[in-house]
């Protein structure tokens, strides 16, 4: 195991008590246990409270646009498959602005991990509803409450044969560390959604609210994350009981395997000018 101090980043600007803190801690723990060094790791994030996550950690960082973590992360993987790539996104970021990329990435199956910091609210912009806000959740903009049900994100992932689909809870750090480790070592696209209480803008889905509901799906007798129908049902379970753990797993070829150029290593090492006579040959 590597020392945790290796991963120290700049000082955080999150609110005290924010669910992002235990996530950061669990993530560092997972890295240290897996012995992933900062210079082997690229974190790609968008804009939102989660978007700041990579800054609070020492690692390669690309903090891009709201909603666009997945294409940047995919591009980086396709340029250098030697990098361990983690895309960090908010629920608004990934299921709202960036929903189309999630659909496409599930199809592509690049070998990277997506962590969705799901606080069921737009934190950074001060409390509007997100796609995962529960129906009836009241905001300044929707004083009568969100009129429609939340996105069923994990069911979406199962339905698209996402190759690894899991859920963690920021209030269960040890379990979360384990999930981070599994997601990071999974070959293919892993989607880890983490229930992350926002103490400033989500006064409904609090630590306590989650604690009363979450249960470890692996404790369910016989639960088999490779059983698609069972996984589908677990993925849709939301209310009195909320499963955490590995929901679904399916072995699939990765995107990287489909690009023969990557067999010769990182693209940066392959840059070369090309002979003009050969390029022009077809045109005479």
């Amino acid at each position, binding site marked *: 195991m590597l020392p945790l101090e290796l991963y120290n980043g*700049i000082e955080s600007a999150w609110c005290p008590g924010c669910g992002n803190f235990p996530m950061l801690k669990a993530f560092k723990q997972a890295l240290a246990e897996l012995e992933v060094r*900062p*210079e*082997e790791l*690229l974190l*790609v994030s968008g*804009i939102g409270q989660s978007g*700041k996550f*990579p*800054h609070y950690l*020492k*690692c*390669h*960082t*690309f*903090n*891009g*646009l709201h909603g*666009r973590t*997945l*294409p*940047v*992360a*995919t*591009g*980086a*993987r*396709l*340029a*250098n498959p*030697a*990098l361990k790539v983690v895309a960090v996104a908010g629920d608004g970021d990934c299921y709202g602005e960036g929903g*189309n*990329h999630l*659909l*496409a990435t599930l199809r592509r199956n690049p070998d990277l991990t997506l962590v969705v910091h799901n606080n069921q609210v737009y934190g950074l912009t001060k409390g509007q509803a997100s796609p995962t806000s529960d129906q009836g959740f009241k905001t300044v903009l929707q004083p009568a409450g969100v009129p429609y049900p939340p996105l069923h994100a994990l069911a979406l992932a199962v339905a698209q044969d996402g190759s690894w689909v899991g859920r963690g809870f920021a209030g269960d750090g040890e379990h979360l560390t384990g999930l981070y480790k599994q997601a990071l070592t999974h070959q293919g696209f892993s989607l880890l959604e983490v229930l992350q209480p926002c103490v400033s803008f989500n006064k409904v889905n609090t630590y306590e609210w989650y604690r009363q509901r979450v249960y470890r799906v692996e404790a369910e007798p016989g639960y088999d994350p490779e059983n698609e129908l069972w996984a589908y049902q677990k993925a849709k379970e939301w209310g009195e009981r909320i499963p955490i753990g590995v929901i679904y797993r399916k072995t699939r070829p990765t995107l990287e395997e489909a*690009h*023969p*150029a*990557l067999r*010769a290593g*990182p*693209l*940066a*090492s*392959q*840059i*070369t*000018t*090309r*002979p*003009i*006579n050969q*390029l*022009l040959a077809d*045109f*005479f």
Partner: protein
Amino acid sequence: MAIDLNILIGGAAGQGVHAITLPLAKALVRQGAQVLFVQDYQSRIRGGHLFNQIRVADRPLMASREGVDLLVALNQETVTLHQAELSPEGVIIYDAARVKELPAGRPAVALTHEALLPGTQAGEIAVNAGACGAVLGLFKASLAPLLTLLTETFADKGAQVVEWNLKAATRGYELAKTQGFRVSLAYLTPPSKPRLLISGHEALALGALAAGLNFISGYPMTPWTSVLNTIGQRAVRWGVVVEQAEDEIAAINMAIGASYAGARAMTGTSGGGFCLMTEALGLAAMTETPLVIVEAMRPGPSTGLPTRTEQGDLSFVLYAGQGDSPRAVLAPGTPAQGFALAVKAFHLAERYQIPVFLLTDQYFGDTQFTHTASEFPEVQAQPAPASGPASDPYERYAFTESGISPRRLPGFGPQVVVADSDEHTPDGHLTEDLTVRVKMHDKRLRKLETLVQELNGITTVGAADAPLTLACWGSSLGPVAEAVDRLNESGTPARLVHLSELWPFPRAVATAALSGTKKLVLVEMNATGQLNRLLRQETGLAADHLVLKYDGTPFTPEYILKELKGHI
């Protein structure tokens, strides 16, 4: 005698008009003609009327002209729509099964399946190949290059198809050879330096490949798709990662991710798709990630005329994205420029760590020009992206005099590389320190001050002191150059000034080239004179007259001369 012939080949979409025009055009090139080959098509796959034009001459051609000397009609509509364009001695070659009405008193060559390939099931092959042969026959040109080309082209369709093509072409050739025609190409000889026929987008794509491109992501959109396809078809051979994106937003963000991680990356689109890329354009500028973007214009606003041409996006690409952010804009006028500027775009993007545009259009992209191989020089190897000294601890955005900070790649050393779309400190982390903000903003914009010294891109024709100057940019080079030639030939001294490197605006060279003329005319394929706006804003110079065109078709020398009447 100067030869200048216009062949128009028209038919219904799906009838194979494109398929037959290319071998014919190449056959002419191989035996020594100069050729310009223009496609005109509608936004439909089958049934709509479409036509191609081959202009043939004995001097280099950079534009199509009006008038038709030889009309190849694969359907009645071609005759109906284009007979008025026929020159006095013009000849018609037609599919007798489909064309029932011809203008009276015109020499014409009828082609039929029965005459060309009797008793076969060759379908459209008969008349298509027959027509190619007939054109050469009429011109008394050599048939052999066409036969070679048909063999090459249809090799993978099987021996039967090749045989039909050869037979029909030969029959057509013989049928037409006996027909009188005012000029003969019998004197042509294969060029000493082999010539090629290449479109703007093909040349641009080859330039990118020559410069070391190894990542491209894109979403299909006419007319940009031809760049993507040209590279896609060569991807496996040259080790390029090609990824078809789910939308243009993903396309550009993927390319940025790839470039950040060390790939030599490009993306592209047309105006509508570029709208969706503008946010990430700013991301590339802010994170100082090299990126080459092809913006292939077509008439707008909105969906507009998807398969036609215009130069309407210049102002847009100059200022796209919020805030003041650095970029460079290059707009080639010929395939050779397309090749050279693609190479230059990668050089500038990488050296200045900014997004660089290749601004093209449908006319530039699809039109095929005759070039010699020597116009496509070997590309000099460039230094690796992350070279030169860097500080320790590493600062991705270290303040420097030039504004250029030493770049490092993630995964290629012990330093971590931190890039951020927020305003950031030299080490890449987000900041609200307003002094750092100002310094960082200045640093980014300062890069253009050095960059502009690498720009020039001025092409001129005509005497430097000509009282009349026609200025233009991008794909209008050819027609305007020919209009200037004709003016000079007809005794009106005129000068062409063509700009291909538009931003940061090369004030000094442009002012030098444009000042001192009596009358300045801007020739642009848009409705508002976008280069004229830029020129006035940057230099105070302004056109005395604008020649504009925005009907979706490219300039012809004739159109320009007509529009100049009364103004010169």
